[in-house]
């Protein structure tokens, strides 16, 4: 949806900046805006300047709470006509594939300036490519998505506003990855990016040869997202960073976007992030009406509480679609016990386990009935969304059939306590490991445990610390059964749990190791899994939309028939709080990690109707 070219408007700027211009601290607006600033049509109405956006953050490892608001990529996700997500222009005005989809040409907007006034050009992309992406001291090795089947791309500067990305073979996903990973480096701990301020960072590059650790540490220090001196291209820039207490960002006077009436964006003067370790504090802040718009850290069981203060504190509940499917994933190559591995590999065993789960009860007890009971299928907002037809559905509650199935595969004998005995004569004893400790997800797993025991399968829970879970699953694949969420909007870009092609895949860790090492290490997967691994490669190079939909049909049917993963209840909605004083925030949207919600909804157009004063803030009684 590229907005039509609007005749040159006379542009206005925020009063705060107009004052600065009079004081001579800032050049006039015309010199700060590019010749054709990007025009963004606010979703509801033209806003007004002023106001501070109060948000909550758990610490610098919760950087997404801030980074998603300053989501300024080469190209960006936006809402398509059908309400789904598509890639639109960002710093790149337009792009095209040439040389039969093997080269992606990017046309940067002309005349853009960094937040310190320096010009932005292709050199900033090249600087990142040569001095960061390809320097092992800063980025380790090139990320896998920029070297499809192991041949790194080439980045060529055709002129100061055009950059070509050349790949060894067609790579339509490049645009999606650009929208996903095309941000300013390093995005705190994501350690990914596509451009960096050359004029600011070049002096900190290690002098030729003397690449000692200290200089790289200094380089990181300067390039760090929370460094107030660091120039940015986003709507706000960091003004104060007090670790452990708060982060203050203020409007970027050189921001290159205007609304459809010519007002330089953003509307809000400041963003203040308060840092709290105790997520309960967010409920307190919400019920005292001190949060304008926040979707992070709210858990389902607090919904009734939040709803009982909506009118008294003048806010509403914001529910966006959630795209994750919570699933139980047995380690099909479980190294611990060959007999158990064989049992987990038996399809009927997994089907029986799935049939033994009463998902309605879980949905009602744990998710207030707002969950979605589904097999491993794409979320409607996914770009490649397609309906899964004529496939077996094991996500139904049928304990009798489950008991019959378990008896049929030789588990009919029971031990003294009534638990089923495996083919090796030992009682079948499953252990579910999970990293979340409290809240609805923990309750759900507790219910599954008791329901598996009801059909005679002895089951124990092992909640464990995140690092331990990460180590046991992604590094050694020694877990028995893992419980995690599977991304269902952009599985190609970020999820590891669809194709068993990443070490992160709980059900196919060792198969993925075989796939990634070209067969030298890991365990050779069965044919159906090899097909899945192949499908991911094909999908990453298929451009035609119908062909992609057919391929996705096959992927989803593969999962439905083989039930590699036992889906529990997909979280249908993520909840948040929206103050009635806050304008231009769409009621519907997708809470997606890849689209950096609310980043893709143009937070620069959010505005405070009462434009509350900058610092003083009256706490509503």
């Amino acid at each position, binding site marked *: 949806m590229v907005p039509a070219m609007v005749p040159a408007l006379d542009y206005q700027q925020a009063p705060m900046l107009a004052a600065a211009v009079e004081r001579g601290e800032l050049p006039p607006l015309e010199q700060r805006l590019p010749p054709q600033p990007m025009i963004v049509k606010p979703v509801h109405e033209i806003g007004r300047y002023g106001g501070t956006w109060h948000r909550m953050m758990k610490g610098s490892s919760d950087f997404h709470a801030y980074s998603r608001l300053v989501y300024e990529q080469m190209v960006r996700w936006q809402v398509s006509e059908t309400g789904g997500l598509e890639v639109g222009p960002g710093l790149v005005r337009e792009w095209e594939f040439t040389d039969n989809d093997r080269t992606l040409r990017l046309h940067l907007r002309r005349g853009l300036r960094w937040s310190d006034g320096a010009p932005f050009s292709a050199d900033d992309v090249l600087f990142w490519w040569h001095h960061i992406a390809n320097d092992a001291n800063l980025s380790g090795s090139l990320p896998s998505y920029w070297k499809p089947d192991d041949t790194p791309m080439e980045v060529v500067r055709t002129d100061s506003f055009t950059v070509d990305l050349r790949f060894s073979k067609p790579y339509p996903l490049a645009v999606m990855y650009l929208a996903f990973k095309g941000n300013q480096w390093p995005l705190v701990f994501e350690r990914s990016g596509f451009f960096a301020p050359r004029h600011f960072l070049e002096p900190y590059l290690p002098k030729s040869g003397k690449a000692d650790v200290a200089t790289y540490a200094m380089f990181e220090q300067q390039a760090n997202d929370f460094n107030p001196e660091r120039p940015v291209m986003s709507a706000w820039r960091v003004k104060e960073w007090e670790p452990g207490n708060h982060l203050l960002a203020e409007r970027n006077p050189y921001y290159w976007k205007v609304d459809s009436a010519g007002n330089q964006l953003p509307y809000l003067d400041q963003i203040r992030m308060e840092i709290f370790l105790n997520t309960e504090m967010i409920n307190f802040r919400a019920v005292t009406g001190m949060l304008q718009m926040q979707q992070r850290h709210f858990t389902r069981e607090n919904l*009734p509480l939040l709803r009982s203060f909506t009118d008294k504190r003048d806010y509403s509940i914001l529910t966006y679609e959630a795209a994750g499917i919570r699933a139980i994933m047995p380690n099909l190559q479980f190294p611990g016990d060959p007999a158990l591995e064989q049992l987990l590999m038996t399809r009927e065993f997994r089907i029986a386990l799935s049939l033994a789960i009463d998902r309605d*009860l879980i949905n*009602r*007890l744990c998710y207030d009935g707002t969950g979605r009971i589904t097999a491993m299928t794409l979320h409607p907002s996914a770009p490649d969304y397609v309906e899964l037809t004529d496939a077996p559905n094991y996500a139904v509650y049928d304990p009798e059939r489950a008991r019959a199935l378990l008896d049929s595969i030789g588990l009919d004998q029971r031990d003294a306590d009534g638990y089923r005995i495996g083919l090796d004569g030992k009682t079948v004893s499953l252990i579910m490991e999970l990293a979340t400790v409290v809240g609805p997800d923990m309750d759900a797993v*507790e219910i599954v*445990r*008791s329901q598996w025991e009801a059909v005679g399968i002895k089951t124990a829970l*092992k909640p*464990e610390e995140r690092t331990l879970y990460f180590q046991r699953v992604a590094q050694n694949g020694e877990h028995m059964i893992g419980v995690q969420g599977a991304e269902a909007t952009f599985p190609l870009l970020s999820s590891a749990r669809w194709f068993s092609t990443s070490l992160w895949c709980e059900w196919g860790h060792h198969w993925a190791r075989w796939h990634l090492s070209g067969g030298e290490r890991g365990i050779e997967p069965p044919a159906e899994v090899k097909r899945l691994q192949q499908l991911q490669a094909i999908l990453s190079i298929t451009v035609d939309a119908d062909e992609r939909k057919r391929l996705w049909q096959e992927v989803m049917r593969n999962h439905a028939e083989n039930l590699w993963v036992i889906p529990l209840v997909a979280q249908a909605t993520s909840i948040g709080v929206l103050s009635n004083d806050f304008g231009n925030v769409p009621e519907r949207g997708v809470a997606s990690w890849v689209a950096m919600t609310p980043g893709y909804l143009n937070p620069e157009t959010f505005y405070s109707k009462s434009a509350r004063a900058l610092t003083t803030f009256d706490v509503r009684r």
Partner: protein
Amino acid sequence: MSEINDARSTAGQWQLAWIKFRQNRVALVSGVILALMYLMTVFSGFLAPYGPDHRFARRAYVPPQGLHLFASDGLHLPFAYGLSQRVDDTGRTLFDHDPNIRHTLQLFARGDTHSFLGFETDLHVFGIEPTAEDGLFLLGTDRQGRDLLSRILYGARISLTIGLIGVTISVILGAVLGVTSGYFGGWVDELVQRTVEMLRAFPQIPLWMALSAAIPPDVDQITSYFMITLILSLLGWTSLARIVRGKVLSLRSEEFVMAAQLMGASHKRVIFRHLIPGVLGEIIVVATIAVPTMILAESALSFLNLGIRPPMTSWGVLLQEGRNLTTLYFHQWLLLPALFIVITVLSFNFLGDAFRDAADPYTE
């Protein structure tokens, strides 16, 4: 004054202690309460109307339901009303008494099977005839629709035992090491005090995290729970040691200690016959204070997923529910386990005080 003591000397020291002990009515009441509590632990299976994991699908967050005698048509045997559900505008399910459904209370009702001293039985002291929907929720239910009273009774097994064993170990360690450190002084005192400092500077959080990683997932609950108790008590004795040492340092120069030494009493005799009774007051106070601390420490461990794992539960774990605003705002009854802890600790405290007064030669 000396006449009173003289007259009594004929009645024997411990007999006298019992006479004084009996006089303290509050101590007797506390003793009875504690005995009941520990009986409750042994017979929790029978007393609890339901198993700790019995979920009532449509009964999440039911407030405590009383027993009723009077109904619209007069007097009845004690009964519990059936509940009808409705959802208010904030999406919260509320429960009202359904006047025409009444479940009369049954004594020795049949219910969930539980193991008692090795054999299985489904006999419960009280309950109502099992129906799918309704249940007997004297103290209400939790987030998953489980009866809170039953979970408190099962939780007592962990909390009351862990409280007792852990405290006993740390008190014995603290008292003996504290007294010897204060009495001998010199390098003994130096060694004990430095260990105390070392242990108190011990960062416990990474230790627990490392332990939770080190324990293999399928270790059975009982051993891991005993191991936790041991560690808690090994780290817990230091404050008592410091207090006792301070007191002994001043007692050491008291004449009854010197007198005993002059009479050639062995160090061991001085310590156990004179010094430990001298610091009995401090020991008892710290011991009664250590009980709640130990019970709650166990819950902190469960939070770091090292302690009790479902389906076992404890008072501390139940109190974890109190961690959020929703519980405070809507479901206050979920904090009831704290009341049980307070009652237990008060009983321990008054019992301890009475014991201290009775055994103390000085007080009338």
